[in-house]
């Protein structure tokens, strides 16, 4: 009984896609703008690493543990590779692998989750219980065990993390899809005689996209944190490929000599995590329909 009187409201003029985007960006809070800038910068580094980085990722350019200088801003690592170059290449590896993992886990978890929500029945029950079992085991320990069994390769790493992570995506997709699937417009589509693909992609997916996109951002953070953790433990990305987690691990003893070197890749991890979270926060706030009062 409190809905606004829309009868008397004037017709809103349509904005073009570009005008809409500009308007949206203008309304973004500073944290979100900061987050987007950082993410854009990271992706830029990841894409153009060979052109930006002063040296290549595995090239030995001087003595081990050389101090920072004009030629090597962040100094050299334990076998004399340029730390700055390795941080830049690390962006490419860490982000690339994390992105691929999240994409795979979303295709598995998302499709199964939505399918179970729409069809219900025995398949839904089996999948849900299976996911419960998987989720009861801590991801890091489970991943360590599986990697030990399957062998340390990047393909294995991506696949194992994607499967483990897809359980979380499954739950979210299933629950959000379920709340949409019981709405009258889905029933109306069924009554019209629509087939499953239409019901899923035209009726349900557009309505559950905002939480899924937000989850994508958060999952991305978790995955690359997990990759960094696994690399730190020595089972993730293998040398000589540059990766922030293993870089922290390789130079960790330097911290006892008061050298900031291990903090640099760690800061790269932290900054990206914070940036993604800022953007996701804003996006969730935008799409949740909460009022932003001043």
């Amino acid at each position: 009984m409190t809905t606004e009187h829309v009868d008397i409201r004037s017709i809103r003029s349509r904005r073009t896609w570009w005008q809409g985007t500009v308007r949206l960006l203008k309304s973004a809070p500073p944290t979100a703008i900061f987050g987007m800038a950082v993410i854009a910068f990271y992706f830029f580094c990841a894409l153009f690493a060979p052109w930006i980085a002063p040296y290549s990722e595995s090239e030995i350019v001087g003595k081990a543990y050389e101090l920072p200088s004009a030629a090597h801003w962040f100094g050299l690592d334990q076998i004399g590779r340029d730390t700055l170059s390795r941080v830049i290449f690390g962006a490419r590896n860490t982000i690339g692998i994390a992105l691929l993992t999240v994409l795979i886990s979303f295709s598995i978890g998302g499709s199964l989750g939505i399918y179970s929500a729409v069809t219900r029945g025995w398949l839904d029950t089996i999948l849900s219980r299976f996911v419960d079992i998987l989720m009861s085991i801590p991801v890091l320990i489970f991943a360590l065990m599986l990697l030990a069994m399957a062998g340390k390769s990047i393909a294995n790493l991506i696949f194992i993390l994607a499967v483990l992570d897809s359980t979380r995506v499954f739950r979210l997709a299933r629950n959000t899809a379920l709340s949409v699937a019981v709405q009258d417009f889905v029933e109306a589509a069924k009554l019209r005689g629509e087939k499953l693909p239409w019901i899923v992609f035209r009726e349900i997916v557009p309505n559950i996209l905002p939480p899924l996109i937000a989850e994508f951002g958060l999952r991305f953070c978790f995955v690359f944190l997990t990759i960094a953790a696994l690399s730190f433990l020595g089972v993730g990305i293998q040398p000589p490929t540059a990766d922030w987690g293993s870089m922290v691990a390789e130079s960790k003893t330097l911290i006892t000599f008061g050298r900031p070197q291990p903090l640099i890749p760690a800061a790269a991890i932290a900054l990206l995590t914070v940036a993604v979270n800022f953007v996701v926060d804003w996006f969730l706030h935008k799409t949740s329909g909460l009022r932003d009062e001043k």
Partner: protein
Amino acid sequence: MKSDAKKTTARVKGSTLVEMKGVKIEGYSDDKWHPIIKGINLTLKRGEVVGLIGESGAGKSTLGLAAMGYTKPGCRISGGSIHFDGKDLLAASREELRSLWGSRIAYVAQSASASFNPAHHLMDQVVESACNHGVMDREAAEKDARDLYKRLQLPNPDAIGERYPHQVSGGQLQRIMTAMAMSCRPDLIIFDEPTTALDVTTQVEVLAAMRRIVEEFDTAAIYITHDLAVVAQMAHRIMVLRYGNLVEENETRAMLKKPSQDYTKTLWAVRKLEKKESKGADIALSVQAVDASYSGMMKVLENVTVRLPRGRTVSVVGESGSGKSTLARAITGLLPISKGRIEFNGKVLPPRLQDRDRDTLRRIQMIYQSADTALNPRQTVRDIIGRPVEFYLSYTGAKKDRRIVELLEAIELTEDFIDRYPGELSGGQKQRISIARALAAEPELIICDEVTSALDQIVQEEILRLLMKLQKDNNLSYLFITHDIATVRAISDEIVVMYKGKVVQQGLKSEVLNPPYPPYTELLLSSVPQMDPDWLTKLLKSRAA
């Protein structure tokens, strides 16, 4: 001591309890503050009941809540003054307000089932405010609550408090909520559409109980509703609101007899619409001795037989749980029937939706109660109406667009609406789009499930008029499911009365709505509130006799 002295002055009947002067309230949306209440005065004396009526969006709930110094999140009081028993509520701190709320001012919400915590016994929740405010200790409060249950004529008043909210009916829950509000013997109760979600037969009991208890304790009340007949039973004085302004204010009887403003007159005048009944011989849909049940358990339909003549409207009436919506699900095939058969155009309909061919599906369309959930919020009007055109009739491109515009014109909207999303439409417009979607399939039968019950009275009238016009133009048959007798009177040719999954009566409108009645039909019809302020009193007297 000072506050005690004040309390006693307020207890004197006829003294002013609430005084609101020039109250202005604004709400925040689209980055701007919009006025919701544009300067309204309201004075309430002790023991007096004021009815606030108006359509949705008129600001009645907002004004009612403001009387307790509260605004919903996203709203603010931007002007005027609000005094409760001499105390300035706008200047009062949150703590002071909190101590008033629950103890001296109580609120009864529309949906009792959403307002109770499902995890606690009813008794715990009823006595909570009395205990927290230190009015009584737990034992005294429970004793008092049982006494209130008795006065509110709840069954088994000594034990009902031990139940959980889901174990009692909606009408009982609404009365328990009233008991909760009364537990501290407040000076003011705000009733916000307390009977809107109830069936008419239950509504009578709840109204009678609330009226009695308010009179007994000499409580002042603000009664918010959109139902004129209900407010006529409850209020001493009526205030009509529209777009946040006060349209008219008067004593109930005077107002009902002679409204002075045009808007009030139109409110009073609705439901002049009445279709002339006519009997049809050509049967379009015939439901024959049908049983249906959910997952093989309890039967929700038992031996149901309904005949729907072509080009006519058959209304199915009954309370919630009578099986009228299940009948619709059985006809559409969503709930396959377990016994009997359903014939459409003389051919047996396959019970299961999956077994029906596309052309059969096209001929039977459905319109839902709530257009909010019946329209996909992420699709434009073009997608919503265009899909059946494309799906059943294989129109594409410009031909499809032309057809969409034709349909928009048929439902009395313009082509400007084609790119709008449901969120950009009013309730009535959304329901029109639902109608257009059904119409787009060029159906023969449309099942209308409570299509007007979520709408304001004036909008209801427009929708009913539109449905009648479309029926005439396209020779449509309607199966019209509703609990609202006024709607039934307006639109039907024939009426089916259902009770607990069985058909009690089917016949022409004139037969069903005139005596002699079967007992249940009589109960149902007599429970429909009338615009006569003495209706409830008379009804209770006649039922007691």
